[in-house]
């Protein structure tokens, strides 16, 4: 009996925090691996349309992006308020697309070139004229695998 009483009176030992850094490091590595830094600063306003039949872009390193939308407020004085194309960090013309695709291809390993995808991030209020022009340029550059970036539509 005396043994039990002794245990009761004993204070709870403090939880050891020695393993805390390990836990935090584990979380840290998880976020470091899963993180993707945004490479370009968007200069156009893009709200991609909604769709239901989506497929995911698996390999981020094989994707080249083309942004189309109206320029942000601070660029509107120079570039106007009509939808413009953005490639990398600058505004571009439709005729710049083949050069962009070539540059993107040269940056990749030769074996990976056939699997490259072009992701079109186009604002939903853009007129089709500019999109059709881009598609024609992509066809000329033989970058045929494309992905119309869109959001998942909430199910009713």
């Amino acid at each position: 009996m005396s043994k039990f009483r002794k245990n009761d009176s004993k204070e709870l030992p403090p939880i050891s925090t020695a393993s805390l850094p390990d836990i935090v490091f584990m979380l840290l590595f998880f976020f470091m691996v899963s993180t993707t830094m945004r490479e370009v600063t968007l200069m156009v306003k893009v709200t991609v349309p909604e769709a239901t039949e989506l497929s995911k872009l698996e390999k981020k390193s094989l994707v080249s992006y083309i942004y189309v939308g109206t320029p942000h407020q601070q660029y509107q004085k120079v570039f106007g308020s009509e939808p413009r194309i953005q490639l990398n960090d600058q505004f571009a013309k439709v005729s710049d697309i083949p050069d962009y695709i070539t540059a993107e291809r040269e940056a990749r390993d030769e074996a990976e070139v056939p699997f490259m995808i072009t992701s079109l991030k186009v604002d939903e209020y853009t007129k089709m004229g500019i999109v059709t022009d881009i598609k024609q340029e992509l066809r000329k550059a033989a970058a045929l695998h494309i992905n119309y970036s869109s959001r998942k539509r909430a199910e009713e």
Partner: protein
Amino acid sequence: MAKKVPEIPGSSLADIAFMLLIFFLVTTTMDVDSGLERRLPPMPPEEQEDDDTPPIKERNVFVVLVNANNQLLVEGEITNIDNLREKAKEFMANPYNEETLPEKQMKEVDFFGPVEVTKGVISLRNDVGTQYGTYIAVQNELVGAINDLREDLAKQKFGKSFTKLDRDQQNAIKDIYPSRISEAEPKKVGGN
């Protein structure tokens, strides 16, 4: 005797790790890029302007036109986008072998044996002034119609969802319901 080097305190390690952790937490964007995947047709060779491929019969083509006001004309009728998927499914499947819907062709497919495969083609043409959002919605419905048909067939034949089938089974189903969505060559109409 060399003096013993005092041990580096490890208690601040957690703080440093926390700081890094918070930095990565803040900068992380978890959104997976997703979208409608399509393949563009290759550019036709320059010299071959008038090809001699036989013209596709009218009953085999499902014409979808979208005008600058984002209105749809499907097979000559003004249609709401909500009804497009049903119409496209009916066209591609043609369950009762109707005269007006596309012809079928006998074809040997793995797992299924000889099956009737539709000759139907969906043709999509849009105006220069069509809104991109509408265009994607139309594409989405057309792709969705074919995906629905494939899904139904997968359930019926293999008792599993299409995405859960292995590659050969998926290819067999893709042979039966091919994704034939053709976009008309953009035409520069004169007069500008």
